């Protein structure tokens, strides 16, 4: 097991290097340059264009730009400067990381808490009224884009004279020190993004869980357990669910990556200060070091998530051995 983890950890570094290399050159394929959007401003003279290119190292060959960037990370832990903000990339990402992880983690937990029980229930009561209703809601949740759900909920809240229609705090609490009332205000804002972002997952997870359960419920060992005269509750939870949940652990590892990227359009509609819109703007502005660092981060989290999922699988399922 230890060897397995060590090997997988060591693979992470060359993978990240490859990801950053590809990402760096894919960004360059995008038409235009970082300085394009400034050209219209009369303050931006031709001389300034040249000088800024030198300042940012954009006059150097691409491979040199990339090499210097990697060298900076290896030697100084410096992920480069943001062109737009004149600041190190790491700090800018750090400012947005907490809220991104908070919202994504809560949305994930929310979707699991809803989806797993519904999945089990609909499998056990297959083709009943509950199953039909849950499937309908599941498909609806899957079909409605998250931003549309966000807009609809905002319109609903506004029509009920509600106040909390986006952001993470009311205006007066944003720059106030933490207090109990600030926490309450935060919670009153938080449920909206969690539902909007979580609902999409609910539907797919629920379908997955239902299918797994149906599969397992037809297995011989479940019939054996039943014929032993075990209580149905024990058959379901101890025998069926424990086996049905394995594939979902792999899925959980994959959804880890969403912790850092988050939902772009929903975050924009709901006014969330998260990584998604930041990445989008940086891509648009060709702020290259911000973009690759973010892509690097989400690949890292994805790989760690997968590793954790594999380890977890080995723990919950004694049949799986990596040696």
């Amino acid at each position, binding site marked *: 097991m230890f060897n397995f983890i060590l090997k997988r950890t060591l693979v992470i570094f060359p993978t990240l290097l490859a990801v950053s290399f590809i990402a760096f050159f894919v960004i360059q394929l995008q*038409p235009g340059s970082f300085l394009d959007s400034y050209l219209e401003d*009369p303050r931006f003279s*031709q001389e300034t264009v040249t000088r800024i290119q030198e300042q940012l190292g954009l006059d150097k060959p691409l491979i040199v730009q990339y090499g210097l960037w990697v060298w900076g990370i290896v030697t100084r832990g410096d992920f480069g400067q943001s062109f737009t903000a*004149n600041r190190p990339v790491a700090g800018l990402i750090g400012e947005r990381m907490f809220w991104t992880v908070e919202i994504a983690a809560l949305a994930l937990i929310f979707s699991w808490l809803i989806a797993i029980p519904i999945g089990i229930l609909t499998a056990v009561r297959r083709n009943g009224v509950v199953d039909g209703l849950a499937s309908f809601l599941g498909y609806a949740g899957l079909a409605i884009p998250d931003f549309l759900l966000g807009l609809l909920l905002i319109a609903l809240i506004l029509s009920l004279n509600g106040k909390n229609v*986006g952001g993470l705090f009311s205006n007066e609490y*944003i*720059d106030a020190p933490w207090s109990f009332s600030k926490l309450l205000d935060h919670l009153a804002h938080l449920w909206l993004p969690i539902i909007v972002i979580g609902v999409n997952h609910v539907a797919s997870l629920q379908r997955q869980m239902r299918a797994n359960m149906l599969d397992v419920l037809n297995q011989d060992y479940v019939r054996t357990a039943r014929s032993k005269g075990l209580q149905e509750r024990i058959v379901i939870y101890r025998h069926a669910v424990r086996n049905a949940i394995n594939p979902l652990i792999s899925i959980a590892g994959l959804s880890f990556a969403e912790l850092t990227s988050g939902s772009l359009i929903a975050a924009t509609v709901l006014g969330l200060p998260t990584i998604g819109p930041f990445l989008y703007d940086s891509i648009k502005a060709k702020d290259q070091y911000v973009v690759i660092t973010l892509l690097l981060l989400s690949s890292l989290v994805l790989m760690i998530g997968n590793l954790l999922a594999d380890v977890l699988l080995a723990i919950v399922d004694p049949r799986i051995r990596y040696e």
Partner: protein
Amino acid sequence: MRTHKAFSVMTVSLVVATGILASTSLAAPKTMPDYSKLGIGIGKPGGSYTLVLGDSPQSFMYYGAIDSNAQSVTGQMFDGLIEYNLASYKIEPALAESWTASSDGKVWTFKLRQGVKWQDGVDFTADDVVFTFDQIIVNPEAKGGDNDAFNFNGVRAKFEALDKYTVKFTLPVPNGAFLQKMRTFILPKHKLEKFTESGGAKKADINNAWGTNSNLDDIVGTGPFKIKSYVPGQKVTLVKNKYYWKEDAKGTQLPYTDTLEYLIVKGPDAQAAQFLNGTLDSYNISGAQFPDFKTKEAAGAAFKVIRSNALFGSPPHLGFNWNAKNAVLARVFSDLRFRQAMQLAVNRSRIIDTVYNGLATLPGHGVAPISNYYFNTTKYLGEFDLKEAGAALDAMGLKDTDGDGVRNIGGAGNLEFTLNYGEDSSVYKPMSTILQNDFKAVGVKVNLKGIPSSTLLSTARGQDWEATLLAFGDQPDPDLRKPIWQPGGALYYFHQATQPATPGGKENFKAMTSWEKRVWTIFDKASQTTDQGIRKALYEEWQILFAKNLPVIMIAKGANAAVVSNKIGNFIWNLGVIPGYNPVPLVYNK
């Protein structure tokens, strides 16, 4: 002509100068002019004003970034030597109380307002002014500097402090728009010198000053508000500057509100929601949002929808590449008769109705209709008339010879071109389809190509394009837009043959048509003349040449609209990012 009516800026400044010099007064706050015409009255101090930013500011260093969000915030923290009258856009004293120009227009002397303090209590003096120009504004490495504005044919203007409250600027040549440029912000030497060459730093270091993670106590201006806190991605909070140097007619110190807050909210939907829930006190809306808010207003909502014609803003135009790679097309595009025919097929009233929801007017030519320099060129716009457009193309010999519904150019194939438009813009997209349809009706085939709006200009400045929709911002003085409209200028993108062979070289006069040569001379003369009567006459001549010769076809000038909560008084529409035009200190809570 009409020039004698034009109120000369020079005359104003000299009158102000003599008046103030005679009274030798000390600390003199500026009393706000009477804006009752704009519905502005005496307000009451206290309360707060909450506005929106479309994104996080990139920096708090005005000259370190070109970013409208940063400009909105810093615009409340700093002042220039002069500012605009909010109603007439005429130049008024700000940090400078008076000024004089030498008779040859090359030497400008500014008397600074005494008793003005930086927000940390340090005196504002001539040293700050000289430092700001010398070390920051003309520093070509400052991302948001303004190097070119003070660089005349390769010679830089000279900035000197004569005494604590007098500065002298010496220009190598007279410059007609010089006073306009004095609205740029003055920054504190005692806080920023360490980021400049005179403080021992590298030229590029100025861009790293006052970043969004710096200590906010170090950021001090002379403006109405001082920055207090910044929560990344969420909010910027400013508080009233207790040293501010403006007062209302009754002597109450401005600004009225104790705090000014900028909530960071992206996108029109989220912004609308934050306004409707009462968090935002006002915000600028687009033509697309106008009907919805108007309906809510009529239904008794607690806000007003305000519409106003303002000077700033970018009217879109249709440009053809006279030097297109396809030589046959290039010849057609550079033919005035073709551009005239195409103008007849531009359905401006439909565009104003459907694209802008009526929130637009007919365009001027390089000058906004509300500007002092505006000359009414409406009659040259012509009426939308497809039949006449078709006849004009027929007369050029561009006829559909193969019967496929598209005109042919001689024997060289269809009259067909690609039109670039901003795919992420709510204005360009529908506008391009309207043009495509109407042009099709006169037998001109348009292939639409959507590209990101931010790359429209850089694409047009290259060679690989045929036609484009584009927009340049209007400014109060045409000299400030010289690189765009003077033939051979860096942004004279539609006729690149006139541009210098090497950057910084001489324009290629041989490539210019006769009217282009005249326009070149007009801009050159007007730039170097300080007599505002002569300048106005020159720019009127240019607007007529523009309207007649159609270097580009102007389409419409979007009007401005905003929604304002009923708890707010003294609202004046503004873009929020224009130095020298800041009505926010007058806003109060009812």
